[in-house]
């Protein structure tokens, strides 16, 4: 047991911390700054800042240098996540590309794909969307209907994708479609992963307003859109395997970034509890609310320990396999616990933009609602529990 990082890793922390100190304006660290921007302004501000970060060498931390990465260790990536969350740095505008597409390209892509995709992605020159879910294919991804008919050197795409993050800002979309006609009962056959240009007449994106009022998601409609046959990732007809590999990359994540974010959220909730009046004393002194706050903190710290466990395994080159699929349940449930304690502390004031004291609440309220979507997307809690039961505990199907 030794929780110290290597000297080299800590040097990286110092270097990145110094860069953040110098390059992240103070106002951008406050949630109010972002709450007061339009979605478009917010996106462009984040994009510009992230581009600068990449130019200064802080992108693709653990990726090979020949494709534009920094060539660091998994621990450096964890430190990067932690430092980003610690200062409240803007979240990436290329989340799906970074988390899913890039490692898949690195694993299955042609040399040409690696060179043409990774660099522009890191530098936010190309913003990537993910096109998996459809109205009839949510938890059951294999039910997807989108068709991509081969026509000469191109595919002709028709269909609809939904819950597409950044749909309104995307330049390209990696999307799963059926490239050959149905193969009897084999629902997983005949799919391909296509890399499609979104700036073409046959692709139309519409924002999808969420219950928060924001529109991080959208729908993407394909009507005779085209895609060159060379822009298949992982081989034609191998789409299901490619998608499964792609989704597996989330599992390697140590969740230290999520921990650090949710811990900041918890600290803010505690600040609110200290400021909020409850029977003439701060809500933070109410014995029952203290139980709720502390219960959330217990889960949070356990999430941190688990991220150390995952990082230890990853650093030693071990594949966590399906054991790691527990991470999604862990962080999303923890997020819910922190959000629940916020709801308990706020009471009737939940949903009001600020308290009398001037304390702004938009961000915390949005997070509390956002936590409810996190148990749905990326494999609902119900689907994940079944995976854990069958693949980790070995319970029969």
């Amino acid at each position, binding site marked *: 047991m030794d929780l110290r990082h290597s000297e080299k890793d800590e040097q990286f922390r110092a270097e990145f911390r110094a860069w953040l100190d110098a390059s992240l304006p103070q106002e951008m660290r406050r949630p109010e700054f972002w709450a007061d921007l339009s979605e478009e302004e917010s996106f462009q501000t984040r994009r510009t800042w992230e581009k600068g970060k990449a130019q200064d060498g802080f992108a693709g931390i653990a990726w090979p240098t020949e494709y534009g990465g920094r060539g660091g260790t998994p621990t450096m990536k964890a430190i990067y996540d932690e430092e980003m969350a610690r200062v409240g740095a803007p979240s990436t505008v290329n989340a799906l590309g970074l988390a899913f597409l890039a490692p898949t390209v690195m694993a299955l892509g042609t040399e040409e794909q690696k060179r043409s995709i990774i660099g522009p992605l890191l530098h936010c020159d190309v913003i990537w969307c993910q096109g998996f879910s459809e109205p009839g294919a949510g938890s059951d991804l294999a039910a997807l209907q989108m068709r991509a008919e081969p026509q000469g050197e191109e595919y002709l795409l028709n269909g609809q994708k939904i819950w597409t993050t950044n749909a309104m800002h995307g330049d390209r979309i990696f999307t799963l479609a059926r490239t050959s006609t149905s193969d009897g009962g084999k629902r997983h056959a005949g799919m391909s992963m296509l890399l499609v240009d979104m700036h073409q007449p046959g692709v139309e994106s519409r924002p999808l307003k969420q219950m928060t009022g924001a529109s991080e998601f959208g729908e993407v409609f394909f009507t005779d859109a085209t895609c060159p046959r060379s822009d298949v990732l992982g081989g034609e007809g191998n789409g299901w395997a490619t998608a499964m590999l792609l989704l597996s990359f989330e599992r390697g994540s140590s969740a230290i970034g999520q921990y650090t974010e949710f811990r900041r959220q918890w600290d803010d909730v505690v600040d609110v509890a200290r400021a909020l009046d409850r029977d003439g004393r701060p809500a933070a002194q109410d014995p029952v609310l203290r139980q709720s706050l502390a219960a959330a903190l217990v889960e949070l710290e356990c999430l941190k320990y688990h991220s150390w466990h995952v990082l230890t395994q990853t650093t030693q080159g071990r594949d966590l396999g399906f054991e790691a699929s527990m991470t999604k349940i862990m962080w999303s449930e923890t997020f819910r616990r922190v959000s629940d304690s916020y709801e308990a502390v706020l009471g*009737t*004031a939940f949903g009001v933009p600020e308290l009398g004291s001037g304390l702004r609440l938009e961000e915390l309220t949005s997070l509390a609602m956002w936590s409810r979507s996190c148990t749905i997307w990326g494999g609902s809690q*119900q689907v994940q529990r079944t995976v854990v039961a069958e693949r980790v505990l070995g319970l029969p199907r």
Partner: protein
Amino acid sequence: MHFQLTDEQRALRDAARSYLRDRFGPRQVRALYEDPDSDGVPAPLWQALGEQGWLAVLVPEEHDGIGLGLLDAAVLAREFGAGTVPGPWLGTILVGEALRLAGSPEQQATHLPDLAAGGVRGAVALLRPGWFPSPAGAPASARDGVLSGRLDLVDYPSTADLLVVAAQDGLYLVDPAAAGVTVSPVDALDRTTRLGTVLLDGARGEKLPGSTPAVVQDLLDRAAVLVANDLVGIARKAVTDTVEYDKTRVQFGRPVGSFQALKHSLADLHIGVTFAEHAATYSAHAADVDAPDRQLAASIAKSKAADVSRDATGAMIQFHGGIGYTWEHDTHFYFKRSKRLEAAYGDAAQHRERVARLLVDQAPDSPAVSAVGSEMSAGVA
């Protein structure tokens, strides 16, 4: 022994239900969501509330009301919860109750007929947000009939014609248009209300002479009972709609409602809502017959309803999948209304603490302990 609504109460419920089905459904609610700057009181709805007598249920017949009981109002509150109905119905009802319970004959004669007809809209500020539901939580202070204080999170203050405000020594009628009263709107997540802050700075108030601490507590309990019924309406609707959706939504080649984990969650929610419905019903009846356990019943109803509605509206999102998180689906109407009401007039934990004060801190054979036939000893019905 009949633990059920009377035929008249069922007729009242059915009337509200058909009005909401035919005249004020989710489309009308959505209009309020899309127009947060409106006053939040759809004119046809408000007119209907007056015409149907739904503002008059609790007003005595001598003041042009219908003179029914809290259970009748609770029947309406439950339907209004199920329909996420906007408007100052509750505030108007509570102003009426304050006058009925504590007003002088003159005050009653002056205001009750207008309140019953819908000509006057009421709003109340009885409790500081977050405070334990007791007279000690009064948000205003009074000296010689002059009021001061900041009244937070008041429902519909901007459209109110008459305010009832709790001060440390009792209840006051306040004219929102009077000098020393400033109303500022506050954004609300739940757009089936319009919230505001009311600043009292030397405003004149007219004392309700009968407003003893016991009466203020009674009014707080009645408010809690009505809110509990609203929450129970929300929760039942959330479970019903989710069950219907999950019967038809197909994934993995079968309706998602055929998966056992969903079934068991929904079965537990159904049982929880059933308990909460009973509790909400009994709490209103207990007030009507002045049962010895009426305070206990109010706290049981409010805590159970708050817990169940929180769980049911949360599950409604989860078990609708992605669509349940969108603005376009009605799910968030229920979720947001539930959030606003869960802690109103005391949250679940505060009402559990009150249960403990009533039963744990008292002698074991105190009259607060209730049982079948307990009304016999109270000698009323």
